[in-house]
């Protein structure tokens, strides 16, 4: 038997190389199992609190989105196929809830799907991220529709946007480390909204059957080109470069480019290349734009304002989407005729494919750079 790869290897192969996505998967596992060997440092990077407590079980290594041991298994389990993974259908949809519509910035599909799941008792909590301050975000569990709408109203809708661009306005929310506390609150089934790396870690955990991912019944994935770390230095640089005051920003979005909406109602479009310098370095080593292993993947890309592009991937995802549609939580964009529908959907898909290719290419280059020219871990 090969030597078990442990957190030490994870530190060397992922954290120290700067490709840790801070998804919190390793920590969530370690704490949920009450092994408590790990913590997040002030930059939300995992590290040992107490190396002696590490049992060298090797599970954190396996579930990391940046390691590839379980990748083939995931591919097979989800019937992955190029270029964007398996999916059943692509649509453009929006919420029917006036309240959600008022506060959401895209179509509000995520909030509405979660409302449907909560209303129908299919979950008893949804793990989402909520803005707690101008530059701070926190993962929360919404257990009641009101909490979800509240989160959507003040912060969650923004978070959707930001996550859709992959971004959290400021620091990335290590959502998974919140899951660890779930079981004690007697949660049975939860839904998680997350970025590709977070969903990837969840799926790897589910491959192994390990806690706390056994509680997660539904995954809604956000399209993600990259995340941004708005620390003080980065903010200053960006403000200077774009000539805006970030205090005035009301909304960030990525569709074809980086879209900044200011308080005065002014919208600035910035080519993505120009904001790369504030993107988290880990994101450059990530292959997944369209959240290839989620039950349903969503984002603004390809849809007109007020609509969410929705990729229905798994059987579970299809059931949820169809039921939410049937019960009137969401409605689909209407087209003149079948021809227009086909054309629009093809366009949406083409955009997603193009972004996916771009991200995969970038990851390939980044990883080969890190390996000094040789290809290493994290196969596409």
């Amino acid at each position, binding site marked *: *038997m090969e030597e078990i790869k442990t957190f030490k290897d994870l530190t060397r192969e992922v954290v120290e190389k700067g490709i840790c996505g801070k998804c919190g998967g390793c920590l969530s596992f370690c704490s949920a199992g009450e*092994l408590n060997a790990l913590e997040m440092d002030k930059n939300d990077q995992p590290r040992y609190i107490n190396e002696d407590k590490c049992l060298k*079980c090797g*599970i954190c290594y396996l579930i990391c989105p940046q390691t590839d041991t379980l990748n083939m298994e995931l591919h097979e389990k989800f019937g992955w196929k190029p270029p964007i993974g398996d999916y059943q259908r692509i649509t453009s949809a929006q919420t029917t809830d006036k309240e959600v519509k008022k506060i959401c910035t895209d179509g509000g599909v995520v909030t509405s799907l979660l409302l449907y799941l909560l209303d129908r*008792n299919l979950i008893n909590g949804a793990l989402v991220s909520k803005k707690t301050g101008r530059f701070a975000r926190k993962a929360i569990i919404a257990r009641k529709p009101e909490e979800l709408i509240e989160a959507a109203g003040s912060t969650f809708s923004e978070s959707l946007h930001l996550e859709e661009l992959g971004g959290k306005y400021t620091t990335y929310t290590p959502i998974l480390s919140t899951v660890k506390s779930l079981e004690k609150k007697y949660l049975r089934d939860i839904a998680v909204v997350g970025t590709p790396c977070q969903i990837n870690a969840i799926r790897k955990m589910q491959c*192994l*059957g*390990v*806690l706390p991912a056994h509680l997660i019944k539904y995954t809604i994935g956000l399209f993600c080109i990259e995340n941004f770390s708005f620390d003080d230095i980065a903010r200053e640089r960006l403000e200077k470069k774009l000539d805006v005051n970030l205090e005035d920003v009301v909304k960030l979005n990525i569709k074809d480019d980086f879209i900044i909406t200011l308080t005065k109602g002014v919208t600035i479009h910035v080519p993505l290349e120009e904001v790369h310098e504030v993107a988290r370095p880990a994101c450059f080593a990530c292959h997944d734009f369209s959240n290839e292993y989620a039950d349903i993947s969503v984002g603004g890309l390809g849809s007109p304002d007020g609509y969410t592009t929705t990729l229905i991937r798994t059987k579970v995802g299809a059931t949820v989407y169809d039921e939410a549609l049937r019960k009137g939580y969401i409605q689909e964009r209407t087209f003149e005729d079948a021809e227009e529908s086909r054309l629009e959907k093809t366009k949406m898909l083409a955009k997603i494919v193009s972004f996916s290719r771009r991200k995969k290419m970038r990851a390939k280059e980044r990883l080969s750079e890190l390996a000094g020219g040789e290809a290493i871990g994290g196969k596409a």
Partner: protein
Amino acid sequence: MEEKLRAVLVIGGGIAGIQAALDLGDMGIKVHLVEKKPSIGGRMAQLDKTFPTNDCSICILAPKLADCFRHSNITLHTLSEVKEVTGQMGDFSVKLHKYARFVNEEKCVNCGECAAKCPVKVPDEFDMGLRKREVIYPYYLQGVPAVMTIDRENCLYLTRGVCRICEKFCTREAIDFEQKDTDVMLNVGAIIAATGFDPYDPSGIPQYGYKRYRNVILSLECERLMCASGPTGGHLLRPSDNKPAEKIAFVQCVGSRDFKNNRYCSSVCCMHATKEAMLAYEHDHKVKSCIFYMDLRAAGKGFQEYVARGEQEYNISYIRGRVAKITEDHDENPIVWYEETQSSKTNKMTADLAVLATSLMPRKDVKELAKVLGVELDEYNFFKTDPLNPLDTTRPGIFVCGCCREPTDIPESVAQASGAAERAAETVMR
């Protein structure tokens, strides 16, 4: 030689096999009791109460489990399967395959530290998948032998070479990943088959919506929900919203007396449903139960009185009519559609929970066992017997009792077990 052959193999550690083993052991005959699962106890251990006395099932079973474990004439072979039988009546050679438990039975004290730390969660078979368990686990709380077992299918060390967390927390050093499966040869004079039943899978009757509607459950699932050691701690909460079920529809003959499925009567379900309806009422006096039946078969000692008591004291209505289909409303309440045979009118009833009395079928792997034993099965795959030799199989020296012979309730299984034990004793003491 003489000494050696005064031994009997009993296959199946449910109530029938246990009773047969105890009777033989008490006669001074050596018994090898073989059970495929990690612990003996069988289906009876899964029941909350037993009819017609409403005794706590595990309370009357547990002393027998302990007796089996301690009996100087009984050797337990758990996690074991019979793979080969050669020879003849009076002198059978039996090859047993013993699966590794990966836990040292001598050292393990069943403290549960390992399970508390095991990170893998899989559906619990004993609780009918209604709860998740760890991969190192006690088969059930009162199981005998009272030791942990590692589920090899899901253990991360055995499947992927990582983890070993349980090993690090076991202060008794009982975890043993080096354990290997072994083959054991036994020499016995007679064999008793008591392998029990599996419930019919009602997805074969899609109009009842099992698995499609969350509040349509099996009677064995209902049993686990009502059991204090079950997944809800003994509260009959319906799966969709964990709210107490107050109106319950019991749908009888699901897969039984049915030309498309099993033509035979499963014999225990009329009483089983009555019992569950009574228990539900005992838990909560707001409960109203309706039992939809074709014919109410209460042909046992005290059974007719039991049904009468149910009707008079436990708020049970017996409605004669076969259920055509089950649908559900917006709140996931099952709607039972049926024909009232007295008025010949179709009708429907909305309930909080629908419980399907699924038929009792031979174990899924019974054909392989029959082949190994060299015995014939009947048209439904129950062991073939003859009316005047009801406990003899088609091969001399091999006997049968309990639900693998035909659907049988507990008192009847116990009676058959004693009969089969006596038949086996006759053979080996000759």
